[in-house]
């Protein structure tokens, strides 16, 4: 029981963490992308559709990545090039993606909504490590995407905090005018962050359909994109904090399934609401906003 719960926590945490890491890159560059939910949904749908019709999981993953990038590109044109209000644009992009995936889903898979299944990606047990009691299956018996995501976290931490690229990225999020005056090219850097993040978020969506559910249902992301936003905040814009917050929220989501099955006194909705309520508590109680990059969310235009 405990083992199943812990495994489930990691599995639920993975797409959230992956998307959150992408969003961290974007926010360090000074942009807040509420459209992350839309990118995840688009990635989920594209991955399933392509995998189903082509028979290739790899192509499906590629499709998910491409869809995520495409959605973020729309966002980038408006927010980076035209310096438009980031919040409203992100919301619009999410609505747009919700609509587009819904429309294409019906058209491709018919009105019946019959579950079109693909085989979920196989797990890759890590040899003898996977046989350690309890820790083994929980940490070392997952599919490749899970390993990839959890390795990406420390890698990204290093890049942001200790490399030249990370320094330039943070400069854009701190004071874009100064970064531009130094020739850093804020527009290019923000675009790069959005494209990479789009790939990651699209991949996270692909995880949902190809690794987790094996199928697509309407709005399969169910707010996970927004949870990723919360994770960045609760994790204090720090890769390690993001890992911790993702696992915490993943555990909450795993818990609600168990509770639903058991039908206990505690309503399972509480656990579904937990990530969101916790975000509010962190923001309200711990000066959450102060850890954000200084220029986060402010439109920036050269000249």
């Amino acid at each position, binding site marked *: 029981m405990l083992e199943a719960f812990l495994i489930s926590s990691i599995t639920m945490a993975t797409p959230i963490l992956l998307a959150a890491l992408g969003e961290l890159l974007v926010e360090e560059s000074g942009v807040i992308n509420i459209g992350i939910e839309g990118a995840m949904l688009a990635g989920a749908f594209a991955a399933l559709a392509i995998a189903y019709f082509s028979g290739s999981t790899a192509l499906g993953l590629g499709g998910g990545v491409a869809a995520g990038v495409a959605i973020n590109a729309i966002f980038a044109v408006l927010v980076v090039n035209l310096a438009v209000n980031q919040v409203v644009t992100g919301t619009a992009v999410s609505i747009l993606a919700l609509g587009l995936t819904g429309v294409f889903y019906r058209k491709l898979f018919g009105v019946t909504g019959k579950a079109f299944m693909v085989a979920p990606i196989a797990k890759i047990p890590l040899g003898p490590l996977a046989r350690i009691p309890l820790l083994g299956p929980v940490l070392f018996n997952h599919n490749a995407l899970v390993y990839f995501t959890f390795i990406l976290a420390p890698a990204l931490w290093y890049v942001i905090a200790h490399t*030249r690229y990370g320094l*330039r990225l943070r*400069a854009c999020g*701190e*004071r874009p005018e100064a970064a531009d*005056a130094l*020739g*850093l090219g804020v527009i290019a850097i923000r675009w790069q962050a959005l494209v990479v993040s789009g790939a990651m978020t699209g991949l996270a969506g692909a995880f949902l359909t190809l690794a987790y559910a094996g199928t697509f249902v309407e709005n399969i992301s169910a707010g996970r994109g927004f949870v990723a936003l919360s994770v960045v905040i609760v994790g204090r814009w720090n890769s390690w904090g993001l890992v911790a917050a993702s696992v915490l929220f993943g555990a909450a989501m795993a818990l609600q399934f168990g509770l639903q099955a058991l039908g206990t006194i505690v309503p399972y909705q509480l656990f579904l609401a937990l990530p969101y309520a916790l975000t509010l508590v962190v923001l309200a109680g711990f000066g959450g906003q102060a850890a954000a990059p200084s220029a986060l969310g402010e439109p920036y235009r050269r000249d």
Partner: protein
Amino acid sequence: MLRANAITKRFGRTLALDAVDFQALPGEIHALVGENGAGKTTLMNVLAGSLAADHGEAILDGLPLQAGSPRAALAAGIAAVHQSPMLFERMTWEENLALGGFDTGTGALDLDAIAARARSLGAKLGFEMPPDGATVENRSVAERVRLEVLRALSFNPRVLILDEPTSVLAPSQLAPFLDLLRNLRGEGRIVVLITHKLAEAIAVADRITVLRRGRVVARTTPAETSEENLAGLMIGELVAEPAPAATPSHSGAPVLQIEDLTLDDHTGRRILDRLSFRVAAGEIVGIAGVDGNGQTELVELLAGARQPSSGKIKLLDGSPGATMAVIPQNRDLDGLILDMRLWENLILARRLREQVTSHGWLNASHAIDLCRELIDRFRIRAPGPETTAGALSGGNRQRLEVARAIASRPKVIVAHNICRGLDLAATAEVHRTMLDFAFGPGRGAVLLISSDLDELLAICGRLLIISRGKIRETDPGERDPQRLGLLMAGARD
């Protein structure tokens, strides 16, 4: 050689640069002087690549510069130190410098090596460096200027352009800074010094170019000119009448009383330290200080935009509705809402808003009439009350703000750097208005906060000095700019 040919730049309706030709030679300090608004900063931005000119080109050593690209400018060897420091507050100073030229650009990022290089250059220049790993947030203004100069020099530039670098330095720090410029000149670089301080230009420059209203009006050398001459070239006309000398204050009862006013910021750093002073009816009190010693925060407190950590601001006049009108330094960002109409900007002042509101109901036509009346009375050049504030020129926006302040019939007017960006005629006009307000029948009180000692000495009765968040009174007879300058720099008596 650095050449600019026929550079033209327009912002909306404003022609900031009009076919400007400029030339500077290696091994020379070239001063670019002019009033605020003459186009000096715009020209620098074009040369440094942050702005693309509408017409014209810049050429360095025979090679044309790519317009609108700071990267290209830096690569060509042009580095700029801006008027307001372009540092990254929450990063460490080492990281700030790493974004300059101390970083080799290849291999792993090595902050220690970068810091070492910065330290050695700093030592050569006689700069004191901040402690290891310190963030820029808490550094003093002078330290920031030094860091910016270091960062600019780290690019080993052929051309170094400095925009009003001494405006934030205390008088005692000025001489070493000018020596630094001479050293740079000695190394064969081109040093362009943008300043409106004529004494400095004459002291250190080899050649001087004078800009006025976006045009080059004179090219000269210190030997061939004088401060008076330069001033005349800068303003282009004689002042209509000199501002009247301050009359000795036989002032009335105190109207504004500040008691132990203290402000700490969110990190606990003390910005204002137990300020206590008062302003009486019929007097103009000046607070002199180098920018960045707490003046902006004091103005925010007086306007009510911010709450003090402790202490009191009291308006002592017993009559109901005694108010204080505040004219903030940053008129376009803090004093006006540029995309609102003139009459709407007018009723931003609470008193005026109350005048046109009854039971919460806003009477727009009443406000429009009031605006029309003030446009006439204060000779604001505007098509009408329905014009957007953004369409007015800088001088007329200032007239609007002064009009609004006076029209709300306050007991006290607080003005911060009120004449910055205005030419001498407009400045005289503002000063006259303030004098009328204080010494006229209304017997108002004026608190003038400024970094311009000349302005303060001209019209203030009493003078206070603010330095590092502390205030001190000066002796009534103390009028020596040298001595006052030292006090502004924080020297003890």
